[in-house]
């Protein structure tokens, strides 16, 4: 167990815009290994939701199977959760989203869950630009089945049993970029400052928002020689830019772009403020993002931060031209054509 929650809470615990304290966003106690990166990601989700003042019951959290996929139990206990089957969260999230476009969807997956057994569904959720915040807690191994190499383990990375991985790694951010995902970021579970604004921005983005988070497995893949360990990640991490998420504030009327910083406006009026930009990288340009990603790879760097964003991509509901009212609220009078129409159909069959 990673943390013991203090029983006593200060009566003056800070409240957010809708009057909730952070407690409203917490979940059950984690049963993951102490120090597991996944718990830090859960913490960042709690913090992001608290700061964004989302209504917890307007969030649905979905996952596949794995240590990572267990984490929805550990945040937002007032949200409905769905721990589905291994690798199949994207399809369940697609159906859930089709049924009610008004909720916010957080999909949690692991590298085994998304890069192997669930690769097909991951790819197709991107293709459809499903409106979901899709977080991969990427530890380069299968934690829950005791440490086998996953498809995101780098070639040559050494696992706890001492053997080097022989196969090429799948870069989920690079793949998503290639597939046309409309929001792509990478982060590190040890970097809360970066994770929180990225999660907020992803939740504001009306489309598929991937955050591939390096989230070390302390039990099976945190040893020397592993390229998904805390130490290795800290040493090789390089950010595209410092990210700040600015919620909608009417008084901000002009975008500013002074000396290496840019403000990206999202549809809900919020702004992603990126400062200390990489040279030659433009978050709105897929080519430059691609180049930047390859360049980092060739230098064995782990590129983090916002990698690419397309603020104009149409999400699945827009593509399908569904009604604004959630489909799950439509009633018989909206849906059933009635017996007179059926009589006409019968007549055409005689």
């Amino acid at each position, binding site marked *: 167990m990673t943390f013991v929650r203090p029983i006593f809470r200060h009566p003056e615990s800070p409240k957010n815009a809708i009057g909730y304290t952070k407690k409203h966003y917490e979940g059950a106690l984690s049963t993951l290994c102490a120090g597991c990166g996944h718990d830090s990601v859960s913490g960042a989700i709690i913090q992001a939701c608290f700061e964004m003042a989302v209504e917890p019951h307007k969030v649905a959290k979905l996952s596949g199977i794995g240590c990572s996929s267990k984490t929805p139990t550990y945040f937002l206990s007032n949200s*409905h959760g769905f721990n589905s*089957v291994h690798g*199949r969260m994207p*399809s369940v999230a*697609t*159906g859930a*989203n089709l*049924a009610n476009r008004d909720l916010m969807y957080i999909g949690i997956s692991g590298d085994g869950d998304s890069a192997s057994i669930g690769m097909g569904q991951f790819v197709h959720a991107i293709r459809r630009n499903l409106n979901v915040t899709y977080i991969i807690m990427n530890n380069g191994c299968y934690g829950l089945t005791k440490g086998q190499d996953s498809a995101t383990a780098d070639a040559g990375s050494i696992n706890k049993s001492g053997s080097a991985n022989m196969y090429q790694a799948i870069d989920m951010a690079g793949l998503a970029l290639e597939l046309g995902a409309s929001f792509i970021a990478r982060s590190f579970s040890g970097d809360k400052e970066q994770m929180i604004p990225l999660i907020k921005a992803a939740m504001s983005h009306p489309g598929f928002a991937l955050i591939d988070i390096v989230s070390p497995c302390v039990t099976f893949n945190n040893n020397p020689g592993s390229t998904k360990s805390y130490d290795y990640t800290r040493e090789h991490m390089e950010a595209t830019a410092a990210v700040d998420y600015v919620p909608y504030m009417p008084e901000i009327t002009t975008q500013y772009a002074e000396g290496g910083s840019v403000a990206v406006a999202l549809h809900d009026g919020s702004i992603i403020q990126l400062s200390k930009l990489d040279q030659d990288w433009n978050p709105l340009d897929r080519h430059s993002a691609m180049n930047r990603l390859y360049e980092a790879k060739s230098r064995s760097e782990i590129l983090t931060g916002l990698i690419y964003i397309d603020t104009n991509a149409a999400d699945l509901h827009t593509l399908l031209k569904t009604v604004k009212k959630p489909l799950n609220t439509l009633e018989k009078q909206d849906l*059933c054509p009635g017996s007179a129409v059926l009589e006409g159909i019968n007549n055409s069959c005689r």
Partner: protein
Amino acid sequence: MHHLTALNDFVVRFANVNGTGSASANLMFAKSIFRMGIPVSPKNIFPSNIQGLPTWYEVRISEKGYLGRREGVDIMLSVNPQSMPKDIANVKPNGYFLYDSTKELHKEFIRDDIHYLGVPMMQMCMDKFSDPRQRQLLKNMVYVGAMAALIDIEIPVLHEIISLQFKGKEKLIAANFQALDMGIQYVKEHYKCPLGLRLERRDKVGDWILLDGNTACGLGAIYAGATVAAWYPITPSTSLVQAFEKYAKKLRVDPETGENKFAVIQAEDELAAIGVVIGAAWNGARSFTATSGPGVSLMSEFLGLAYFAEIPTVLADVQRGGPSTGMPTRTQQSDIISAAYASHGDTRHVLLFPSTPAECFDHMAEAFDLAEQLQTPVIVMTDLDLGMNENMSPPLAWDDSRAYERGKVLTAEELENMAERYGRYLDVDGDGIPWRTIPGTHPTKGSFFTRGTSRDEYAAYTEEGPAYVRNVDRLLKKWDTAKNRTGAGVVSGEKPECFRGNIFRHHHLRCPGSPGTAGSTRYYPGCHACQSVSI
């Protein structure tokens, strides 16, 4: 040589080339007989191929209402040289072989015990029509005309059908009438009409309809208020979801905004298709998928989840020949065990067995009520024969006062006023069916975690033996509840007392149109296409 003679009781088979537009002409032929009040059962016999291979359309005409396929072809219409040797061999002695005599028949095709009726269909169309594609289509009408004169189909009936089919396209109607007449005149001039095999108007079909089961299922989903459909193409289920989409585009588009009150997803595979259905159902929308055997295999994983996590899930299984890819375009009822027990562990699923298109419609609509009432998968078991052929059926019926039975779902008010702690898997009513909540209902009450792992009454993960046993015992209790909800099966046939049997549709239509049968809303005991299940 003798001539076959029969009144309203014979089999006509059309040998066509896939992709030449013969299907609509053939359907007009069958419909015209149906409109003359005589029972018919047309069957499509087609290969797993798109263009160029032979397809057959076999119409059994039976005044007495025997509509299963019968051995022996009385009249063979052949416009496909490729299958000609086989087609000639299939004609009953003293039967007829009607063919396109534009090219002379090869000597080796001549049998001395059947009658040859040549009509130079292609030549006639070449002479009369200039557009090559039109020639091909109109040639089909020429053979319908020839057939009509030979067996005494009422020409005004055919005219009526053609006029309806091409409503608003006057030129096409005229061309079709002309082609029809060319066929009629040619056979009248060259052969004795009608043959000994002929038709005479009857009043044996009442208000029944000719419809394929897949369309009926698709309409059932429309009427039941399904809003999400996800599927992966597979014969013979494809036309089911396509029918749903076709009617949704007609009947479910907001007239003001042009926006859709439905969503159809062509998924990446059957795993995803049923995943979408489960996600939507979990979130409170009626949703369904349709597939066939290979898809059921893939969907098994998710069916187990839906069973154990208790999520209403509607699936239509339009069965085809197995095992494996099997006979993709032939019918079989070989998924019954795999559907009944789909997925590992102690799963069992509610299956509905429609036997007519009217029942396809009813059962599909009923499946949504049952799935939500029972919170479990409900599988509508049809097959290629029922799904892809125009079957005679009582008309589809919908009672406008019928409400959607959404099962045990707690509202925000009910949650607000609830004094005790909400337990997703608590059996508060003693029928094994717990109460569910839809995401987003209440800010602080009613949320729970859905999972395929063992859990306690409050949906919390547990590996405690007693909690597991309580859960599976409750599921068994729910199963008993389900037995009483689904209504009894209909057992009929010649020998319902037989002790050994198959599940089959007994194509025996005893009372088409007789009072009190046609149009009744649910079950049609003793009627066409019954199932006898007795082991």
